[in-house]
């Protein structure tokens, strides 16, 4: 069984405009079209033509693909359902995004050999840098011409490349871990920063630079984030962000958990986003499974997702004020957050990580009296936001600290793959809830807040306004909550429908398998992007017709945002960096996965 219809060899993808343009420019021979369930134009391209194709798409083509949205790889060696696809041991996948077309293009390069290599594209898309390092780190695929192909997620002393299929996924498959003194010293030494490696000078003829290790433990690093600063006084000459301290191998876990049991792991990707993280995952799985969910499910999902957007933004608001030195606001915002979590807890049973969405629905129906709780909250919050406007946002010192600090324009934002409020603060109102509505967002009346300076202050402004819009959306959910079931009537929903199990044997068997193994999702590829709390978050799932995902790619916004830091902060001062970090709104779990 296959969701993509891989066999339909005759489909050359000519229904997609960009595919026609590419055929016209390069001919059909370098490409192989692959139909996918997410209808995202997917082309396999010859390794030799990759550079030309990307350059054409970025620079020459009308309405270009300015953003390298994602770059990842798949270990194809154990994949069974790949009829009609070019032979490959590994595939490197490039996903490009065009704002003008409001559409994406997925390019794949087939690689053969156990440790294959291909040319780096850092020269074309600057933000490919970290993605290529990640692919090298986790797959062992070499990118020729990469400026500094180092491990990024794992420690430099690590042996092996964990996302390869031969690499074990469980701690029980390894020898017990032991940390000897010698090993500790070696690990410490591996963490020592070496400026020359990054093309930095230790000083000029007149002065030495100071190299300051900010993090991985620092009050304002928002998690285990390390950034090494090259300082001249307090001025930042250059810096190198170092991530990976929060890496838990979520993508690898995706290959060992059933489709259903992976949902709680998604909660912890952006750990402030709660059920918002479930959304792209379950939507992608539902596409593969061909499940159409009832309206009530869509509306409940939207409502809870917006609740978590508010929670996440409130925390952002508070810590943002705290990082520019105001100590009180964060306490007020935590009070509000607590009230929101009270509502969330009453509905889902949990506060931060409810893992509440299910494939084909949600875990249970809304409880009695949910509307009163939700109404109380949406009436309470806007007044508090008005207060903060005066208490925090209009404070002249706060403005002084954040106006024109760490500013970038739309073009730079697209170059670095910036999405979410960081992009909208530059004046580009690109919000997936409007641009590519999912889960019924097209039925809601709300605005996309934008600001125009692209600085620290504007990023905060946009998020504050987004909270008001979220309140608006929740109100509409409250007033127009559709009646109906909270789960789709489909054999692949989780947990599967039980009502008729004692009446006919077919349903009983499906139910038994669905509960014991978990659902078997048809083979295929699907990607779902959503406007998450911190930017665009997506799950790119490859199913091989099994109870587990063959490959789970989690594209998170924070990863891209951190990569951008050096280009923005050069020449600024340490306090500016702190304000900038605060304004990005990232959590390290969302960066490292």
């Amino acid at each position, binding site marked *: 069984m296959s969701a993509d219809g891989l066999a339909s060899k005759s489909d050359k993808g000519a229904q997609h405009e960009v595919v026609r343009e590419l055929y016209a420019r390069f001919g059909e021979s370098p490409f192989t079209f692959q139909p996918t369930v997410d209808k995202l134009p997917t082309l396999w391209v010859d390794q030799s033509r990759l550079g030309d194709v990307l350059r054409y798409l970025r620079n020459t083509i009308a309405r270009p693909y300015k953003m390298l949205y994602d770059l990842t790889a798949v270990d194809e060696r154990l994949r069974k359902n790949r009829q009609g696809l070019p032979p490959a041991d590994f595939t490197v996948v490039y996903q490009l995004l065009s704002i003008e077309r409001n559409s994406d293009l997925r390019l794949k390069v087939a690689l053969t050999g156990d440790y294959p290599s291909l040319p780096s594209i850092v020269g074309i898309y600057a933000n490919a840098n970290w993605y290529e390092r990640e692919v090298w780190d986790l797959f062992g695929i070499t990118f020729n011409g990469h400026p500094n192909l180092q491990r990024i997620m794992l420690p430099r002393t690590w042996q092996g490349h964990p996302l390869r299929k031969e690499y074990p996924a469980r701690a029980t498959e390894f020898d017990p871990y032991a940390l000897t003194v010698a090993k500790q010293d070696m690990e410490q030494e591996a963490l020592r920063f070496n400026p020359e490696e990054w093309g930095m000078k230790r000083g000029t003829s007149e002065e030495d630079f100071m190299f*300051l290790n900010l993090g991985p433990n620092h009050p304002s690093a928002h998690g285990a984030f390390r950034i090494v600063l090259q300082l001249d006084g307090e001025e930042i000459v250059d810096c190198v962000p170092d991530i990976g301290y929060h890496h838990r191998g979520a993508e690898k876990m995706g290959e060992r958990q059933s489709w259903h049991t992976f949902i709680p792991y998604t909660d912890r990707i952006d750990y402030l986003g709660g059920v918002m993280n479930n959304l792209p995952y379950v939507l992608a799985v539902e596409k593969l499974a061909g499940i159409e969910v009832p309206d009530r499910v869509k509306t409940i999902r939207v409502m809870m997702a917006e609740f978590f957007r508010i929670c996440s933004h409130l925390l952002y608001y508070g810590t943002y004020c705290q990082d520019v030195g105001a*100590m009180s606001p964060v306490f007020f915002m935590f009070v509000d957050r607590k009230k929101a979590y009270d509502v969330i807890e009453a509905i889902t049973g949990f506060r931060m990580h409810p893992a509440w969405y299910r494939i084909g629905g949600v875990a249970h129906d809304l409880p009695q009296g949910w509307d009163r709780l939700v109404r109380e909250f949406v009436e309470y919050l806007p007044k508090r936001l008005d207060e903060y406007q005066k208490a925090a946002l209009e404070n002249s010192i*706060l403005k002084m600290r954040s106006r024109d600090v760490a500013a970038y324009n739309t073009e730079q934002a697209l170059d670095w793959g910036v999405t979410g409020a960081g992009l909208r603060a530059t004046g580009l109102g690109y919000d997936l809830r409007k641009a590519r509505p999912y889960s019924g967002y097209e039925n809601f009346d709300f605005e996309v807040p934008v600001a125009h300076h692209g600085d620290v202050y504007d990023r905060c402004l946009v998020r504050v306004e987004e909270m008001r819009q979220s309140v608006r959306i929740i109100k509409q959910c409250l007033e127009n909550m559709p009646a109906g079931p909270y789960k789709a009537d489909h054999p692949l929903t989780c947990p599967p429908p039980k009502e008729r199990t004692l009446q006919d044997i077919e349903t009983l068997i499906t139910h038994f398998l669905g509960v014991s193994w978990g659902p078997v999702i048809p083979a295929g590829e699907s990607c779902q992007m959503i406007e998450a709390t911190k930017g665009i978050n997506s799950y790119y799932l490859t199913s091989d017709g099994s109870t587990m995902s063959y490959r789970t790619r989690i594209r998170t916004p924070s990863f891209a945002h951190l990569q951008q830091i050096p280009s923005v902060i050069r020449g600024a001062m340490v*306090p500016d960096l*702190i304000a900038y970090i605060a304004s990005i709104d990232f959590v390290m779990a969302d960066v490292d996965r």
Partner: protein
Amino acid sequence: MVDHLLTAALAWFNVWKPYIFTAVTTLIILLGLVIVAAWMIWLERRLLGLWQDRYGPNRVGPLGLGQVIADMIKIFFKEDWLPPFVDKPTFVLAPAIAMSMMLLGFAVIPLSATLGVADLNIGLLFFLAIAGLSVYAVMLGGWSSNSKYSLLGGVRSTAQTISYEVFMGIALMGVVMQTGSFSLRDIVNAQQGSSFGFIPHWNMFSQVLGLIVWVPAALAVTHRTPFDLPEAESELVQGYHTEYSGMKFGMFMVSEYVGIVMVSALTTTLFFGGWLGPFVDRLPWLGFFWFAGKTFLFMASYILVRASLPRPRYDQIMAAGWKFCLPVALLNMVVTGALVLWKAGV
């Protein structure tokens, strides 16, 4: 024989009586100051709690008042830890300087018409000198710690000092010119009397500009928000005292609060009539309570400032110091000087 000895002792006592009396009052006042400062930590935590919708310490003793004692006991029994990489003598010296300078600075402040540690005729100059010296605590602490965050804290402190010390001194010269004396007791006495029976002749009216400039300078002396750049916890971890722990950290901590008490007391003395207030002429003991009450008000306002303001960048502070405060202070000095000369009929 016994008689003889007793007489001798009495004679000796009579000779030394004023000194002993002074020593005892000094000890009481300075000890009282340290205790007040320590309890101000409690006050700050409670007030911040009140303003931030939470409780603050409320477990130890009534209203949590015993929290300070508990903290003190804890901090006394902590290991006196010297990190191996520090410059030891300087590292130890820095908190001692911090503490002693703040105590010394308080010595020149008159608490009431009769109370006070020392009446120096150069009282205000003495304070300015002490304020200058107290920066060494931060600078040496930051430098000797041999840690990058501490160093940055020390550098910031130095930069901040050279920008506020100048206008602080000049801002206070207006008061001095008006009074014609550096003695703080004289300055208070010169603020006696009132217009229309209810507007006191406090310097806050005649020296508005001086006061405006003095307030930020006073905040800066104590390194409190928004002038807490040397320790800016969201940027420099703990700034100059990142490497300190135990009692040495405790001395930095308490000295900060002693500084707040001192500067609040000084604001009271210079601009708000010190111990002067209604009924002081009839009930002189009331003077101390007026003084304490006014000082307390300023101490509380310090806490309110901390609760409500973010922290500027240090180049912004320096810019504000040189481009706004200094010209205002100079203007104030020139105008006051002209008025003094005009009144004197020169």
